């Protein structure tokens, strides 16, 4: 069964450094998403991406964040200058385009980002 994959599984970085989290969505999916979960808190939506542009973003997704689909398979989340409060599990998700299955989002295993 196709799965969303994410790399790395764990990233440690120093405050102020740039990080890029990588995701490979399910191959025939057209919608892509990033979420984060700070330890002990809810899973929070960051951004959705469709047709090579951002479709929706939350208040969390400020100018420090950017997303990109650099090629036909990868979907990346970049945090330009990390802060301590960016420490969280970051989940990538994808969904099909067209019909009810558009709304079914499939999640990757997550990248645990630790900012020191």
């Amino acid at each position, binding site marked *: 069964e196709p799965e969303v994959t994410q790399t790395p599984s764990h990233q440690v970085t120093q405050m102020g450094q740039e990080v890029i989290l990588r995701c490979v969505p399910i191959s025939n999916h057209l919608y892509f998403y990033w979420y984060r979960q700070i330890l002990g808190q*809810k899973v929070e939506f*960051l951004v959705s991406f469709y047709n090579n542009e951002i479709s*929706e973003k939350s208040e969390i997704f400020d100018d420090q964040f950017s997303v990109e689909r650099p090629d036909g398979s990868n979907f990346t989340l970049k945090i330009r200058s990390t802060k301590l409060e960016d420490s969280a599990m970051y989940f990538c998700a994808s969904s099909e385009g067209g019909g009810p299955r558009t*709304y*079914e989002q499939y*999640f*990757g295993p997550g990248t645990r980002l630790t900012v020191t």
Partner: protein
Amino acid sequence: AQSVSQHNHHVILSEAASLELGCNYSYGGTVNLFWYVQYPGQHLQLLLKYFSGDPLVKGIKGFEAEFIKSKFSFNLRKPSVQWSDTAEYFCAVNTRSGGGADGLTFGKGTHLIIQP
């Protein structure tokens, strides 16, 4: 903006007991409703979903959920739980206003422990 409330943060049951996890959402328009499960060390998996039609939906592993529109609720049920159901359960909702691009709004999750 929508919000999701899960009433039980920690639930401990014995094997073969019946389960009901509460979920309420707030949003005045048309929503899609989901339950996700996260087994220890694994990623979020879609348990079941409701888009339209029969308000009683069945998912994997014997789980079901009932959408009660008048109560803005989507409670998860299982008649007889097993030790392997030990996991974190998340209720989530999105709207159809943005097509497939709408992010999910999650509840805080319910940590379910099944004692043998």
